[in-house]
């Protein structure tokens, strides 16, 4: 009898069949790395507002359906005026963090008064992602890159294929369906008008919707804001939620008011 009780290694427990031991080493001697993500971070949100940009994410790293890591910080500062938020594979993100840190340190020691601004970080990240995609060895992540440099707001998206775009409101994962319409309605056309308090309330309400509807979002979230003052990432916090019996809940179901 085979001694194989480790659920990570045993495919009859691991319904995702994604244990690296079982990864196929196929044509041409190519060894496959991340062919599917293992520990997964879900939705991330980003908006621009009056003073800069704001990102939000919950702090869950899921292992399949299991809420495995509940304090996984998915927002990360890159230098003084850039923050990134990731969705996707946790280990690939940790690799990316290390890579970006090394880059910023290297740039710092050149000591030529040039610092990488957000568009530079964005371009660098997108080239790395596209390169890895082309090697068929992707970093299985979706990034939102936010920053504020010399009065310019920046909010961009990079994914595992190297697809890029910029927008005033970006969301990934199920948030692209649940949160994006709410964000667009609040932000589009009033990028310079949205106040900080409004932006916080907007992101909180979107995270609340996601907490209610997305089973891989928990009620422990963080926000990052990037303004002229630099990057500020909050400690994990919770938003209010209501799980009482529907009859007594205002606005529930067909009830109008």
């Amino acid at each position, binding site marked *: 009898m085979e001694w194989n009780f480790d659920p990570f290694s045993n*495919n*009859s427990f691991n*319904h*995702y*069949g*994604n244990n690296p031991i*079982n*990864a*196929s080493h*196929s*044509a*041409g001697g*190519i060894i*496959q790395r991340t*062919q*599917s993500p293992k520990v997964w971070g879900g939705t991330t949100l980003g908006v621009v507002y009056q003073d800069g940009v704001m990102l939000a994410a919950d702090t869950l790293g899921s292992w399949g359906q299991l809420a495995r890591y509940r304090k996984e910080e998915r927002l990360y500062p890159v230098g003084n005026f850039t923050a990134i938020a990731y969705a996707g594979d946790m280990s690939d993100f940790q690799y990316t963090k290390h890579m970006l840190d090394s880059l910023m340190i290297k740039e710092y020691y050149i000591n030529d008064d040039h610092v990488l601004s957000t568009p530079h970080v964005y371009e660098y990240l*997108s080239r790395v992602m*596209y390169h890895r*995609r*082309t090697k*068929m060895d*992707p970093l299985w992540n979706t990034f939102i890159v936010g920053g504020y440099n010399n009065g310019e707001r920046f909010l961009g*998206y990079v994914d*595992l*294929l*190297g*697809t*890029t*775009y*910029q*927008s005033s409101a*970006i969301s990934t994962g199920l948030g*692209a*369906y649940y949160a*994006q319409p709410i964000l667009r309605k609040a932000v*589009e056309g009033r990028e310079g008008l949205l106040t900080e308090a409004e932006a916080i309330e907007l992101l909180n309400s979107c995270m609340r919707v996601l907490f209610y509807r997305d089973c891989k979002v928990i009620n422990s979230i963080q926000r990052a804001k990037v303004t002229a003052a630099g990057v500020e990432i909050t400690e994990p916090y919770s938003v209010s939620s209501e799980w009482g019996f529907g009859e007594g809940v205002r606005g529930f179901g067909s009830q109008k008011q």
Partner: protein
Amino acid sequence: MDMNSFLPIQVPWTPQTATSAPKQAPSFFPYADNAGTVAAISGTDFAVLAADTRQSAGGNYLINTRYQPKMFKLSNGSVFGTSGFYGDATTFLNRINQRLEWYRHAHDKEMSTPALAQLISILLYSRRFFPYYVRVLLGGLDLEGRGVVYGYDSIGSYEACLSRAVGSGGKMIQPFLDNQIERKTQTGILRAPLTLDKTKTIMRDAFTSAAERDIYTGDYVEIFTITAQGVNVEKFDLRKD
């Protein structure tokens, strides 16, 4: 388009998952279709190119953003537009601009549009067995100052043409251009050359019409006009739903 059949060979790294695995792990597919429409018309001494600015996550009914340009003025005064996979498009654009810069350093002049047309074909073919998933249009003026438009497939076959529309709304715009520009389906009409203003009007109508029916075309259309005076860009609204 089913992108599996689009590849000339089967991607050799399709995982051969162990048959005992209860579920096939989702495998990595290196392409996306970010859709959008690009069209071009060549005139006697001008070329008009246009592209919508919506970027979508094709097949997911998602609008990524309302403004991510897919048409670019190149350093030599030609205009290059592409729809398809945006990651390939940005990479391809970078490679073109790098080659234009090398050409400028080597020859101390700008590359002509017909030469660039050939270069683009070669760059596309350089990835014959892992193609850039891009539908490219190139517009500019030839050495005699006539308007030229080149259309490509994603592996580098190309031809000069009078009018061409590609991308998600291309199938709708092309017959309209065949009728209005090439006048193929008209009889007994005067084949007077089109003016620049008339050409731009036709182009705008083509995009507003395509945006009515194609969900991946919309938000804004950018119209690039190339004349001996240079490149002029105008931006117009399209429907945003």
